[in-house]
């Protein structure tokens, strides 16, 4: 607007206020206020000129203008109308909400599918977070490391965690500048009988030097780890404290370990979280106990401890690794030095997911692989749900077409329509997110038990909500993008004239999306099938011994082991037991490795051959059920059998002799060579991973009693009857040993835990994927049927049968699903083949897994489609044609 100025309105007084100030004022002033305020300024100016003179009036005028330059008077930067789109957005949400309510069926499909997708995404997200946050409970997470070692042999580099005690001592004394704490921990599983009063339990724990708890800064409930110094002290977890002391104050009480050591409880620590190193520690006891209470910690040839170390501030893992690399060389014997032991530190952050080495190079661990696999599955499932949303939105587009036309002719620009459809998809995504949170809360306990985790919903965590809303936002964008772009492109003239038809170019992307959906689903189903196939292949593997009816019992300290002959006689006398035997390691473990063997009477070189060596008692082979291929078992009749050895087939193969029985090998131990004559060859025992090649084993006869007792239950009686009897007689024979037995087949099945977990989770996710895809399909079919109501009516009037209608409606989808199977099968074959490469003992992928996946996909599709198709087929044509 232009206001007149002084030239048009002649004035009595010709003095004018400073032009610059006036122009400035006119420039910044809000147009609504400009006129009256300028009038006021002028009036005042003229008055002042008359009263006080021009100069003062000018100054005052400038002052006033400057004081007017304030918010409220200054014009807004863009136009002067109130502009925000709040009202419009409110309208979008309202229309979106009404649409949801009007099409309840579609809304349920959309929200149901999306919330399933988001639930899966959240669950997997929580699981991945848990995996990535291993050990972060330890305050010194960033400065703790484990000492690893490379040994280079002729053609391989071995990476080993087991160290010698001499090294730990050396690191502490010679390299103390780098390390704040160095703690050695007994390298193998430690289970001890802990006793207080009448309470006696076999517990899992760690034997650890006193620096350990200080390094870990355990969270104490009672006492302090500072008191954990002497060799007669122990730290126990709060759950063990509850169990052992049942209410009594545990502090400074003395508990007995293996009925042999009296240990004073100096502290009770809070149970460690499931995703932490030492999470299964119910106690920390001094390392000296491992070596009979007293020992020189300066041994250089027995690799039996792990070394944990915390760096001094200012040192890096790389730097210190570099400095300690050759620390072992001056101390080890010539043979070890030849393999060039190179030390390095593995930081705590790498322990869980990045600690797999192959030939001296770090490789992707299977745990990291599952993190990846599940992340990808999570994304896929979410994607499936988004595809549903897209498909249903575009399929229903004709219904929204008129609305788009009207909005456009009322002046909506395309970007506003894009906003509208996005705000609708965000609305749906938000609702689904809320539903998903509820679902997650309900499903978490089940999920935890399957995944062997202890995850809770982190209600108070900002990052969780950010991530959750982030997922929702991305879902909204993904799900809304296609409808937003497509629906907003309608031409209003065509739409309103009624000549608008949804063209084929919409149907094609929709078909592509359906194909993608079913591709993913079929791949998941096929993948799950192969995981299960591999698992049952492993379970059915001949293991070289008989797992059924075999129980094992840890006898603990030497003093408590009793006399094997007496125990055998007593137990056999009950009629419940057919045979018993002892061994120094469990039949399901791969502990105990030795090399340095040579032939006595032959020339073949045996250097570099490693054997799993265990000591067993008489009766062990029969109790465990070893199958002899050649030769015989140790026999009490021959006293020379203590100089005999039984080998397995792999060992026989490695020894490369046609008839090993009768040959004598010499085992060089601590500088002395002991001769052993091969008495027999047994079938390979699967002791380690059921999917790995079997190890070469040697069994030696021990004349002393050993740690593990194996009891073969008489096959003619039931385990149920046998156990109480065995328990009773053992209670009098071995009073210091709790009857904490395990079944050998349980021990064996425990080896499948990680595969089983992947299998169950994959199965659940595939079911969800198929479910979500079918929900989408259901929506699409019912929409098609609804759209073609008239056509169906006319066809029926002209004589079409229900079957024909059903065929007409189902054909397209069945074709699409078949096509997806065609794409998915080769892909999953290739992927699963890669996965199986991880296993040395692996099944061949069989055709019936694929046949099953295809069959299942087609069957479920047909059921889904038929439900709607038949409903449309049987509906009365009179009704459908009468409408309008």
């Amino acid at each position, binding site marked *: 607007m232009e*206001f*007149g*100025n*002084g030239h*048009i*309105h002649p*004035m*009595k007084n010709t003095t004018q206020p400073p032009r610059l100030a006036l122009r400035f004022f006119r420039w910044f002033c809000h147009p609504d*206020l400009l*006129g*009256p*305020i*300028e*009038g*006021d*300024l*002028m*009036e*005042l100016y*003229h*008055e002042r000129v008359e009263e006080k003179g021009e100069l003062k009036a000018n100054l005052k005028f400038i*002052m*006033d203008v*400057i*004081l*007017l*330059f*304030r*918010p*409220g*008077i200054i014009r807004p930067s863009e136009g002067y109308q109130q502009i925000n789109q709040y009202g419009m957005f409110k309208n979008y949400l309202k229309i979106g909400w009404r649409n949801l309510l009007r099409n309840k069926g579609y809304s349920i499909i959309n929200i149901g599918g999306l919330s399933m997708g988001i639930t899966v995404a959240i669950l997997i997200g929580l699981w991945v977070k848990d995996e990535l946050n291993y050990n972060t409970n330890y305050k010194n997470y960033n400065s703790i490391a484990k000492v690893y070692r490379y040994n280079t042999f002729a053609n391989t580099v071995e990476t080993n965690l087991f160290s010698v005690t001499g090294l730990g001592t050396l690191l502490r004394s010679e390299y103390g500048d780098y390390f704040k704490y160095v703690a050695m921990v007994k390298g193998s599983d430690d289970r001890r009988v802990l006793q207080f009063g009448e309470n006696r339990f076999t517990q899992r724990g760690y034997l650890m030097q006193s620096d350990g708890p200080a390094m870990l800064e355990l969270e104490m409930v009672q006492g302090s780890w500072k008191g954990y110094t002497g060799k007669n002290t122990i730290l126990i977890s709060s759950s063990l404290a509850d169990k052992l002391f049942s209410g009594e104050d545990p502090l400074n009480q003395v508990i007995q370990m293996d009925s042999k050591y009296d240990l004073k409880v100096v502290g009770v620590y809070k149970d460690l979280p499931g995703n932490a190193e030492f999470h299964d520690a119910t106690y920390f006891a001094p390392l000296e106990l491992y070596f009979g209470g007293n020992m020189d910690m300066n041994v250089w040839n027995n690799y039996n401890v792990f070394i944990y170390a915390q760096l001094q501030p200012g040192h890096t893992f790389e730097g210190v690794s570099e400095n300690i690399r050759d620390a072992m060389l001056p101390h080890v014997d010539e043979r070890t030095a030849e393999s060039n032991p190179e030390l390095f530190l593995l930081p705590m952050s790498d322990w869980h997911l990045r600690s797999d080495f192959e030939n001296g190079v770090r490789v992707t661990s299977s745990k990291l692989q599952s993190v990846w696999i599940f992340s990808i599955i999570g994304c896929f499932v979410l994607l499936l749900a988004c595809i549903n949303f897209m498909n249903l939105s575009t399929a229903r587009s004709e219904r929204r077409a008129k609305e788009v036309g009207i909005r456009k002719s009322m002046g909506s620009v395309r970007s506003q329509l894009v906003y509208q459809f996005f705000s609708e998809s965000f609305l749906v995504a938000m609702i689904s997110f809320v539903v998903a949170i509820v679902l997650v809360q309900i499903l978490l306990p089940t999920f935890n038990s399957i995944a062997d985790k202890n995850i809770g919903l982190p209600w108070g965590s900002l990052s969780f909500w950010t991530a959750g809303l982030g997922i929702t936002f991305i879902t909204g964008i993904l799900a809304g993008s296609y409808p937003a772009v497509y629906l907003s492109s309608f031409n209003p003239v065509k739409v309103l004239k009624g000549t608008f038809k949804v063209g084929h170019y919409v149907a094609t992307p929709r078909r592509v999306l359906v194909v993608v959906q079913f591709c993913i689903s079929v791949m998941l189903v096929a993948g799950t099938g192969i995981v299960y196939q591999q698992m049952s292949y492993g379970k059915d593997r001949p293991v070289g011994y008989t797992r059924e009816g075999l129980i094992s019992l840890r006898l603990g300290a030497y003093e408590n082991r009793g006399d094997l002959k007496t125990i055998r006689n007593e137990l056999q006398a009950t009629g419940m037991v057919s045979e018993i035997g002892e061994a120094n390691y469990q039949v399901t473990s791969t502990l105990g490795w030795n090399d340095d063997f040579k032939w006595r009477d032959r020339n073949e070189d045996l250097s570099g051959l490693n054997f799993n060596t265990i000591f067993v008692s008489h009766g062990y082979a029969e109790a465990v059920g070893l199958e002899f291929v050649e030769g015989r078992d140790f026999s009490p009749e021959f006293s020379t059998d203590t100089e005999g050895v039984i080998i397995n087939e792999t060992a026989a193969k490695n020894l490369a002799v046609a008839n090993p029985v009768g040959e004598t090998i010499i085992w060089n131990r601590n500088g002395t060579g002991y001769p052993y004559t091969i008495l027999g060859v047994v079938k390979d025992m699967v002791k380690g991973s059921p999917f790995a090649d079997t190890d070469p084993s040697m069994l030696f006869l021990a004349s002393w009693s050993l740690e593990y007792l194996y009891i073969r239950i008489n096959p003619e009686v039931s385990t149920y009857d046998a156990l109480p009897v065995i328990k009773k007689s053992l209670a009098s024979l071995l009073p210091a040993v709790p009857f904490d037995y395990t079944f050998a087949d349980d021990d064996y099945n425990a080896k499948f835990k990680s595969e089983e977990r992947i299998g169950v989770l994959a199965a659940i996710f595939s079911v969800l994927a198929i479910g979500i895809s079918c929900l989408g399909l259901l929506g699409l079919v019912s929409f098609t049927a609804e759209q073609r109501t008239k056509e169906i009516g006319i066809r029926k009037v002209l004589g079409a049968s229900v079957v024909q209608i059903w065929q007409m409606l189902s054909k397209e989808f069945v074709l699409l699903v078949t096509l997806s199977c065609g794409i998915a099968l080769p892909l999953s074959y290739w992927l699963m083949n890669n996965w199986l490469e991880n296993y040395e003992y692996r099944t061949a992928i069989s055709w019936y897994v694929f046949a099953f996946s295809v069959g299942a996909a087609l069957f479920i599709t047909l059921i889904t489609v038929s439900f709607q198709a038949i409903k449309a087929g049987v509906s009365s044509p009179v009704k459908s044609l009468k409408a309008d």
Partner: protein
Amino acid sequence: MKKYQLGEFEEIVMLTVAVLYNQAYGVSIKKEIEARLKRGVSVGALQTALKRLEDKGYLKSSEGDTSEERAGRPKKYFLVTALGKRAMQHTKNTRDELWNAIPKVAWNSEMVTSTL
């Protein structure tokens, strides 16, 4: 009460507009306040207050006549609305209540705390 909020200067402006009934526009309000309260008022402060009061609905305005001194610019006359009147009344009432609540003795005694 949050509903009727009037700042000190806003209250003065409202009262002045009411005093000047039908003759209240920028310059006259400014002069009236300056004359009665013996304090300077800048055009900026006054105009901001007027705009805010009008936005709140306490004042309404109409454009009126002009004069040569104003270089042809119209005057903007302000009137107190019913809502404005309620707001003023409310402010007055709360003041009165506070006044009435003051105990008589407060005006007569010395500061007791000074002995502390």
